[in-house]
């Protein structure tokens, strides 16, 4: 047992608290936030290596032994996601330096930013279902602040809807935990899994299925799956690019992670019903997302709808529950976090130059900004999953797993969706970057070169992730192994229990 795995939660927390006191000194804030972000990346990279060498790491907080106290658990999946979160956070942070504006920086932008990372890393790391709720709330509270910071009319209007949706889903989360507690009498995730297996020996009782669906609703609202995505296009449209990138890359993925965790650890006894439902919803998400992405002529909206497509593809892999599909899902999850952040940041630059996100009013950008154009092009190819870029391996494994699970329709739709995703994102490229160049008001004040740093780093990581998938694969398959075989997780948490 080591205290190592709490550091990716603790470092942003302390940084956030410190930054509140330095609110008016912008340069100091940037340095503190940047440094702590780099340290978090290094710590989480070490954590990934530690999990690779020594297996699942656990920490019983205050030495209350599992299952009695709160346990933090870092298996390969959460370690990888924490690392990805730290990298995406770092990119969004340095992008913010030149784009977010002094007004926001003086009003606790960096503090709220760090608290958001606390919530996300905490949600990935915790091994206690109620603690997951608490970290969700930390994350949501920070996201409310980030969403409304700036106080424009659209932001206020959308924040109200966003908060209302999330308050309702939090209440449902509490209800679901209460039901689960009354059935199994424990909150430790590994222990819940043991208890559910005990009572599901003959068949999974109906109440467990009800709880499973309730959890799907709760996390589906956060992760924006098919019938519950309605709040997302509006709310994510309001904030500026770095915040949008942070939300799009991290917040929905926390919902996806939670569905993955609960559906592979708790509710794997009656796959016929719950996972079938999950797979139908996942496929519907893909279809709806693709329709939205094709229909809109707005840079932000197109990428926002692509989030829904990606969430659908990942959850389809989870619902298939074969080792290949699970590793494909994890592969795709990490890829999607990186590439969505990159695309949102690039879209942010396009919007900053053109002063609008309407594709009808943008054209010919590649003439003056070739670097921006080609980076966007590579990011678009990676998103669609063109080999050898990062989206390819993930989608390949998901589709392979789908065929193995005999879900031909679903796997086919995942495949077809790639083409339409490519079409939707190429629409931005063709209309925005090709054509006759236009003059835009105030484009010379945009520090394009500096703003390009973060997306270029992310796209480079995405390319390396795809090309070097041979090197990444052992890590991913270790993560998938834990998901496919919950006993590894249980034994690591409840050692002598």
């Amino acid at each position, binding site marked *: 047992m080591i205290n190592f795995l709490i550091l990716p939660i603790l470092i942003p927390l302390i940084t956030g608290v410190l930054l509140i006191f330095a609110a008016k000194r912008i340069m100091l804030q940037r340095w503190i936030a940047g440094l702590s972000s780099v340290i978090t990346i290094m710590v989480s990279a070490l954590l990934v290596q530690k999990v690779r060498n020594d297996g699942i790491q656990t920490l019983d907080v205050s030495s209350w032994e599992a299952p009695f106290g709160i346990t933090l658990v870092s298996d390969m999946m959460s370690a990888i996601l924490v690392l990805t979160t730290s990298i995406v956070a770092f990119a969004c942070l340095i992008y913010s330096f030149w784009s977010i504006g002094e007004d926001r920086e003086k009003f606790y932008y960096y503090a709220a930013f760090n608290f958001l990372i606390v919530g996300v890393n905490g949600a990935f790391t915790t091994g206690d279902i109620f603690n997951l709720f608490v970290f969700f709330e930390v994350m949501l*509270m920070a996201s409310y602040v980030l969403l409304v910071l700036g106080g424009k009319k659209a932001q*206020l209007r959308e924040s*109200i809807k966003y*908060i209302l949706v999330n308050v309702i889903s939090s*209440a449902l989360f*509490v209800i679901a935990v*209460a039901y689960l*507690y009354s059935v199994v009498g424990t909150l430790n995730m590994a222990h819940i899994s043991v208890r559910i297996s005990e009572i599901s020996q003959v068949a999974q009782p109906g109440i467990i299925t009800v709880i499973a669906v309730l959890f799907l609703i709760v996390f589906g609202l956060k992760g924006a799956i098919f019938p519950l995505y309605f709040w997302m296009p509006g709310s994510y449209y309001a904030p500026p690019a770095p915040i949008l990138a942070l939300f799009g890359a991290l917040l929905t993925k926390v919902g996806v992670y939670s569905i993955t965790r609960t559906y592979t650890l708790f509710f794997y006894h009656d796959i016929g019903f719950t996972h079938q439902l999950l797979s139908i919803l996942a496929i519907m998400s893909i279809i709806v997302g693709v329709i939205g992405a094709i229909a809109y002529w707005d840079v932000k909206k197109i990428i926002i709808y692509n989030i829904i497509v990606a969430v659908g593809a990942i959850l389809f892999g989870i619902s298939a529950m074969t080792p290949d599909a699970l590793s494909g899902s994890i592969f795709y999850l990490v890829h999607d976090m990186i590439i969505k952040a990159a695309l949102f940041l690039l879209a942010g630059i396009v919007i900053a130059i053109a002063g609008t996100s309407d594709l009808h009013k943008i054209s010919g950008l590649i003439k003056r900004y070739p670097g921006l154009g080609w980076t966007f092009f590579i990011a678009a190819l990676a998103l669609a999953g063109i080999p050898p870029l990062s989206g390819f391996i993930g989608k390949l494994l998901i589709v392979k797993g789908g065929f193995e699970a005999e879900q031909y329709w679903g796997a086919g739709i995942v495949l077809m969706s790639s083409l339409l995703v490519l079409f939707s994102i190429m629409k931005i490229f063709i209309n925005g970057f090709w054509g006759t160049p236009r003059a835009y008001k105030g484009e010379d004040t945009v520090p394009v070169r500096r703003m390009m740093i973060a997306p270029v780093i992310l796209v480079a990581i995405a390319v390396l992730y795809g090309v070097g998938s041979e090197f990444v694969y052992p890590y991913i398959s270790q993560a998938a192994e834990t998901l496919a075989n919950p006993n590894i997780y249980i034994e690591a948490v409840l050692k002598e229990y």
Partner: protein
Amino acid sequence: MEILMAFVIGILFMSATYLMLSKSLLRIIVGTGLLSHGAHMLILTMGGLKRGAAPLLGEHASSYSDPIPQALILTAIVISFGVTAFFLVLAYRAYQELGTDNMDRMRGTEGND
């Protein structure tokens, strides 16, 4: 007792849903308050309403009450308290800025703000 609590919770959820479906922002916020009250009562009931001694090692009682639901409720109350406070401030600010508290008039489309 549990049956009675179930009815109370049901009524709380019912009124919360009714209030949240109305157009006035203030009613919606009151609705979210009732919703979280209902959820908290549900945790308490789901743990089982026992009449036992305090769960301390020194008390040599035959039955103890379960402390976990109470700890959970305490946490959930604090969180919903914070969120409600934030929501109220946001609603006031939105009212000042948008000049309405009617959800129908907050629909708005992109580009006209």
